[in-house]
């Protein structure tokens, strides 16, 4: 009975890893593992929604391909952001150089003016 209390009110369920999730969806898990996954699903609204949605994908062997596609899109998004950031940095650079040159010129002119009066 202690176990049932622990199971029903447990907070410490581990997250479900992808392999286990795919095996669960394919009905490839042994009964005790299946029960363990379902206990976790009862603890997490996110995972429960995810599994309900993934169960609608037919055939299930498409899922690794879908995952790869999503990750490849993500990679592109991350690279794009990096490129924008880099472009922005390069665009900002000439102003820094121009500013430095103006300062140096001003110093030189001031120096020349001061020297001509001495």
């Amino acid at each position, binding site marked *: 009975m*202690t176990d049932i209390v622990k199971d029903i*009110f447990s*907070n410490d369920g581990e997250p479900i890893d992808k392999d286990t999730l795919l095996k669960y969806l394919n009905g490839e898990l042994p009964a005790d593992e299946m029960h363990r996954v379902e206990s976790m699903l009862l603890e997490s609204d996110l995972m429960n929604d*995810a599994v309900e*949605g*993934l169960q609608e994908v037919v055939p299930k062997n498409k899922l690794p391909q879908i995952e790869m596609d*999503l990750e490849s899109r*993500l990679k592109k*998004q*991350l690279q794009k952001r990096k490129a924008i950031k880099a472009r922005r940095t390069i665009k900002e650079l000439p102003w820094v150089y121009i500013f430095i040159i103006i300062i140096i010129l001003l110093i030189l002119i001031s120096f020349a003016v001061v020297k001509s009066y001495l």
Partner: protein
Amino acid sequence: MNRDKNDQLSDEDLLQRFLHDRDNKWLGILLPRYSLILFGVCMKYLKNEDDARDCVQQIFFKVINEIHKYNVQHFRSWIYMVAKNACLMWIRGQKNFKVEWNENLNLRDDANEQKQHLSEREKMLDLLQENISKLKPEQQACINYFYLQKKSYAEITTLTGYSLTQVKSYLQNGKRNLEIMMTNKNEQ
């Protein structure tokens, strides 16, 4: 630090590192953990694979560009909220959704984690037995099969004749009712 070591980092650690140096490599480790899960959530609400893929991409876009604006303490619950919000906007035809963040949603997504800790478990055993018998018969049956006899959903459908949806619903409602009953007793 190598990639394997980074993979061991928690979601919150990865997020903190991203917020600290804004290096996308941290999001590149964090977000793939959720790609399939988010696709599942989007499938549940949108019922279309192409829409679900595009919606996940939209969610990633929002995360990449806007996460720094929010005080996210539990990434998992935050991204779940973002995903549901995105699906809702997608259904309404507004693909460019706004993240609506409520500080109260900084709680963990796990239903249990949103509820108070029930510390004195031993004391609760009698209460639990008493309360299980107060549940509706169908909830009682599903709770007993699932938690006591460790049966899977599929086995319970066979044993009881209930549909899978009914089993899940009886378990969720039974569990919730038990928690309410136990919490009320605890507070008394």
